[in-house]
């Protein structure tokens, strides 16, 4: 597979009046393969949207260069900048951005009309695009009369009508309600299968990213944290941030004394294997649905059920471990009552050092931008 989008040492620094220079994107190196669906995932202010806008050509680069389909499109050292209209991309925005003064047909036909494609061909290609997005029959309607989902389909149709090789999707599902979000996700995947374009998908919603991506990049505060497949990221996060960002996480403060682990505020040993070189105060990370809750005592940590909550697809138990309350999720068929004695067992937890306060302060500052 060829690399279709390549970012080399891409850096973007914004100068703000109140907070001085902010490095929004710090030395990004990414290569996205042809036909891949690649997500930029991170909290607001992490640099994901800025990166996308640099690829699209709406922002210039402070340093580095960007290559699209083997062609250099932005380079700070060569002072090269190809405007967005000449990059041959498809793009869909969060706020739909369909033109309210044009009919559905005119909206979708616009990219072709600009290219001076002849009328009969426009008609045919628009009809095709509308068919793929289930909009056939709405040609003469103005977008204002349509629902959010339909408007986003217009945006999709408009993006695919020129048959671009690269599709940039900037939080395209965030303005839709949850049910529609899922449907549209499937539709985007189906379109990709059909047309074979490469997708860059920007989102702050981790489950959406995991559901749609082949690979994804998690970034935070302008830095790339980790790039990998959804499963690897979820199961082997390289930092506490990535662990927490990819799904509900349970962090337990522990202290390693010799070859034994004790949860904070407890004298009972937590029986887990200690990786090499780990000692002192640490954080053990796992997820609420990867904790075993049993009545047997083998290797488990003895405690009791504090509270039980029934949810639609699982039961949640709050269980004290030391002086912390741990949330455990099980299928409905595993049943405990409140105050029952129980044993909890952590399966393959991950170890992290204790939290860094400087990082928290930096994040709070960024939220203000």
């Amino acid at each position, binding site marked *: 597979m060829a690399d279709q989008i390549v970012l080399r040492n891409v850096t973007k620094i914004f100068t703000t009046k109140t907070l001085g220079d902010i490095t929004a994107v710090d030395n990004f190196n990414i290569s996205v393969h042809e036909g891949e669906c690649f997500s930029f995932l991170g909290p607001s202010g992490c640099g994901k949207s800025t990166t996308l806008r640099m690829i699209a050509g709406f922002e210039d680069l402070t340093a580095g260069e960007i290559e699209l389909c083997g062609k250099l499109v932005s380079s700070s050292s060569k002072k090269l900048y190809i405007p967005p209209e000449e990059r041959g991309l498809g793009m869909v925005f969060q706020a739909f951005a369909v033109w309210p003064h044009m009919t559905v047909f005119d909206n979708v036909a616009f990219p072709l009309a600009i290219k001076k494609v002849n009328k009969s061909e426009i008609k045919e290609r628009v009809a095709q695009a509308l068919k793929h997005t289930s909009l056939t029959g709405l040609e003469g309607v103005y977008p204002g009369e349509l629902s959010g989902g339909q408007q986003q389909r217009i945006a999709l149709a408009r993006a695919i009508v020129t048959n671009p090789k690269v599709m940039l999707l900037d939080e395209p599902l965030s303005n839709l309600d949850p049910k529609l979000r899922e449907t549209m996700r499937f539709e985007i995947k189906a379109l990709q299968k059909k047309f074979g374009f490469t997708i860059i998908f920007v989102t702050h919603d981790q*489950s959406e990213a*995991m559901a749609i991506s082949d690979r994804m990049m998690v970034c935070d505060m302008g830095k790339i944290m980790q790039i990998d497949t959804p499963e690897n990221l979820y199961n082997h996060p390289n930092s506490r941030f990535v662990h927490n960002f990819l799904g509900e996480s349970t962090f337990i403060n522990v202290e390693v004394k010799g070859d034994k682990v004790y949860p904070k505020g407890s004298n009972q040993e937590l029986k887990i294997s200690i990786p090499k070189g780990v000692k002192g105060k640490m954080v053990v990370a796992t*997820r609420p649905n990867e904790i*075993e809750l049993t009545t047997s005592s083998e290797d488990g940590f003895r405690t009791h059920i504090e509270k039980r909550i*029934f*949810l639609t*697809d*699982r039961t*949640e138990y709050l269980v004290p471990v030391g002086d912390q309350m741990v949330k455990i*999720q099980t299928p409905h068929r595993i049943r405990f009552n409140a105050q029952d004695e129980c044993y909890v067992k952590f399966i393959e937890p991950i170890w992290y050092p204790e939290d860094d306060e400087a990082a928290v302060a930096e994040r709070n500052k960024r939220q203000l931008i």
Partner: protein
Amino acid sequence: MAEVKFENITATYGKKTVLKDFSLTVNSNEILCLVGPSGCGKTTLVRCLLGLMKPDSGSITVGDTVLFDAKKRINVPAEKRNIGIVFQDYAVWPHMTVLENVSYPLKKRRVPKEEIRERAMRALELVHMETYANHLPMQLSGGQQQRVAIARALVVDSEILVMDEPITNLDAKLREEMLLEIRMIQSRLKSTVLYITHDQQSALQLCDKMAIMELDGSLCQYGNDEDIILRPANRFTFEFIGVSNMIPVVLKNKKIHLDCGIDAALDVEVPADVDFSVKTDMGVRMNDVVFDAKSPVKAKVVSKVFLGSEYNYFIKLGDKEIRVQQSMLDAKLSGVPDDGAEVGIRFVNPRFYPAKKEVSGEAV
């Protein structure tokens, strides 16, 4: 704190009857979550309770106080009802500081000045907003504004606290936090809370009791979370709570058989109270479909999606596509089938309902 009783409430907007003979009791010191699709009349009920709208008939009592009774011609005006209310859009007054907002109900009740400050500060402490007393609402985040609204509702020791979609405008992470907070406050103050929402998930997380309303304004089930999840009263409740598969089945030789392009006998108990002479659907939640290689019921994996805490599958069962959710724990224990693989499946805790008139039972 007191219990709240709605009895035979009928309420209309113009010609449209929103509530008809609606009765409901909110137990003292409990959180009752009133859940229903939007437009089912939840908000109308709240407006009746607050005195912002007059029902056509019925009565509303809070503890010993009759707030409304059509027969006895009693209708206490809104400002005399002593009900704490938290709205979806916070409704924090932007021209008053946090402290002024929270003090307002006390001022209107002619509480002495020195007491006002003390009580208002105490209410703010309860929601961890005491350090923001002199801020204006626009300097606060949505979550903080909602805390102020809660403090304002709590400050006068109302007999009941009404919350109308209080967390709907907040983002996901904050919603979880607020739910916990509301629960903590309630357990500390032992308040009676009527919590209105269309979001069954948050209702389940919060409630002591839950009441489910149908779109026509009728009460379709009342019970605790366990009742609602494990013993849904009817098809509406079952489908409203969570994603479910509806699969046509028939009864043959005292066994339940699939009737969706394949015919396989199911290893489930035949319930006595279901009439199988009419067309029947079997309802199974997506996480109650379990992979089991030994099961005679075979299906084919169409696609799977990794969602972090679980895998979601589309599975072809005969001519139907059903959805299956596999938790990570199960995935680790029994493995993850590939796309196109044939799998054996088993149905846990199925429910049986008469089929809908049109072609139904399609995976939502």
